[in-house]
Structures are given as C-alpha cells and as structure tokens.
C-alpha cells in the first residue's frame, strides 16, 4: 500500500470538500482521514478498492468535523480552540445565514413528499437519482419538485427573500 500516494489523494479530496469554517484545520482533517485509512487497512488489508477508500476517508472526515464542532462548544482553558473561518465579508455570511434559515423554515412547511424531493434536489441530485432514492418514478418527482419549488418561492417571497 503506497500511503504517500494515498495521502496526496486524501489531501486533494479534503481541499475540495473542506467546510469553510475548517479551512485552518485542513491538516487535522487530512491526518484524521489518513489514520482512519491506516486502521482500516490493518483490519482488512486486501480490501482497498477506491470506493472503499473514499468511504473510509469520508467516515474519518465526518468524525473529525463533528469532533471539531464539539470542541467549539466546550471552551477549555489553555486549549487552543478551532478558529471560526476568517471571512472577507461577514455581512454576506450573515445575510446568507438569514436566507438559509428562511429556506429551512419554508422547506419545513412543505408536505413531506415535496420537502424530501426538494431536499435531494438541493443536495445536488438529478431527477433520476431522486426518483431512485425515494422509490418513485421520474414523472412523479418532476411534479413534486415543480410544486415544491413554487411553494418555496412563494414562502420565501413572503419572508422578503426574492430571487
């Protein structure tokens, strides 16, 4: 197992997916992912296909992100806290948060079937993927998204969030 090449791959992946607020902790994330991969390799040395590698790296990343999030909530004296992301424009971030909160509230008002279809769309899934994950057909998903989006837009407009 070429861990040097693996580390390069993990570094590139973390660079692509690292949340903004953890940019300064990217090395920690890479280390966590590498540790997870090495432990997995010890357990299953023959099973190191790329899909499995990604899965293991993801697991380690999420565990580390959750750990960092918990550390932020429990400040300990003498322990360096993960810094909040330094932003060029905090006002933009605050506005984004307000809009994000409004979107979440409006999503919550949709009937479950429409909300779930919209959630998957907002998560970047295509219509066929959404249909597959929800055990439905593309036609029905298109209708759910069509109506869900219209309702979302109306709700956001009532909250003063315009396109």
């Amino acid at each position, binding site marked *: 197992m070429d861990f040097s090449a693996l580390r390069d791959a993990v570094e590139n992946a973390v660079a692509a997916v690292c*949340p903004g607020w953890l940019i300064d902790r990217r090395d920690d994330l890479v280390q966590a992912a590498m540790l997870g991969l090495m432990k997995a390799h010890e357990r299953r040395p023959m099973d190191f296909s790329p899909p499995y590698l990604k899965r293991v790296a993801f697991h380690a990343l999420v565990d580390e992100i959750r750990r960092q*999030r918990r550390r932020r909530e429990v400040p300990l004296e003498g322990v360096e806290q993960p810094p909040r992301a330094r932003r060029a424009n905090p006002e933009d971030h605050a506005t984004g948060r307000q809009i994000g909160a409004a979107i979440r509230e409006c999503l919550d008002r949709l009937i479950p079937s429409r909300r779930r279809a919209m959630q998957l769309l907002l*998560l*970047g899934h295509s219509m066929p993927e959404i249909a597959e994950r929800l055990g439905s057909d593309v036609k029905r998903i*298109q209708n759910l998204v*069509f109506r869900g989006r219209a309702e*979302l837009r109306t709700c956001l407009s009532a909250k003063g969030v315009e396109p």
Partner: protein
Amino acid sequence: MTVDRHDPEIDAWRDALFTLAEDEPQRSDCPDPDELWAGAHGELTPTAVEELLDHLAECAACTEAWRLARRLDGDGDAPEQADDLATTVPIRPPRPWRHAAIGWAAAAGLVLASLLWWTTQEPPATLRQPQGAWIVDTVEAASLARRAFELSWQGPAGARYGIRVSTDDLRVVAMATDLDRAEYLVPAEALESIEAGARLFWQVTADLPDGRRIVSETFEVRLE
C-alpha cells in the same frame, strides 16, 4: 417542466442552506457517517432515505456531510448533461398517442376522435405554444382512487380549459369544457366500468384570452 439541479435559483438556495452548518452545534442524534454515505450513494431503502432526510431537515451539519459524501465521490459539481433535462414542455398539435404499443390503427382512431372533438370547438387561431405559456400535469400520484379521481394541471393565467379523459382503447370516459379552474374531478359513475389498475389518458386544451388555443400533450394516470 423538469428542473435543472444547477439552475441559478437552486444554486443560490443551496449555497444559503449550507451556510447554516458552520454555526450550528453538534447534535447527539446524528446518524453514523456510513449511513450518510450510503444514503448519498443510493445504497439505502426509500424508507431509510426518508428517515435520513427528515433528520437532515433539522441538521445542517449532516446536510453538509451528505454534500461532502457526493463531492468526495466526484458527484454534484459538474453541469448536468441534457439527458434528463427538459426546461420546456413542448406543446404539440393533436396527434396520435405517443405510446408505440398502441399501433397505427389505434393511432388513426385517436386522430379521428380528436378531429371529432375539435370540430365541436371553435377553430383555434393557433396551436403553437405561445411564449411563456404551457400546460403541465401536476398530479403527484401515479394512480388515483375511483371516488377521488381528480386531475390537475398548471396552465396559462386567464385561460378557460377543456379536458378529455379516455381509456387506452380510445373510449372517452369523461369530457368537460369551459372550466375556469385547472382541475377536474372525474365523476365516479364515469369510472364504474373501468377495471382497477387500468391506464387512463387525459388531454387538456386552454383557450387564452387573446383567442388562441393551446393543446397539451397526453398525460397518463392509473385507476386504483
């Protein structure tokens, strides 16, 4: 009628939603990362996906993690290919069924039926889709109950609608004209002789205030 997952409005909503993850505390009921990975990659049952999505609705951190799972696998960033996209619904003039299984004889019968139906209406000024106007089926269920067989659609503002519902052997089950709402409840007695599970086809016309008429494509729904 389909929506592009990379539509600018969808992108803006997505970006705004993901800003929530940064400041939210870590919840104690978050699912195992393996489950999030499985959900993001289509490895779970629909019921399990629904439960995950219900959690994601309240947890920005897991929403972010789901997105990470897709990006780690190279999904979700590239512009969509056109295969499952159609940003407009083409409005076609009346024509034979789209379903190849019907056959030419049935198609000819439908053309005749359409002509007979149209001759009872005012001749349309045009059948081409006007800019920005369309008729789309908004029935969410794949099948409808006999006593609640309500068909609905989205159409141009100010239009008066006509609708025709037929069986797959071209027998007209119900018709209505001059509807001022984009919905129609098929009378239960009209469906009495239709067996459960049968496919029914329906088509809508919209008469616009400017005198033009639009004809929708043929939609399909089953009788429960």
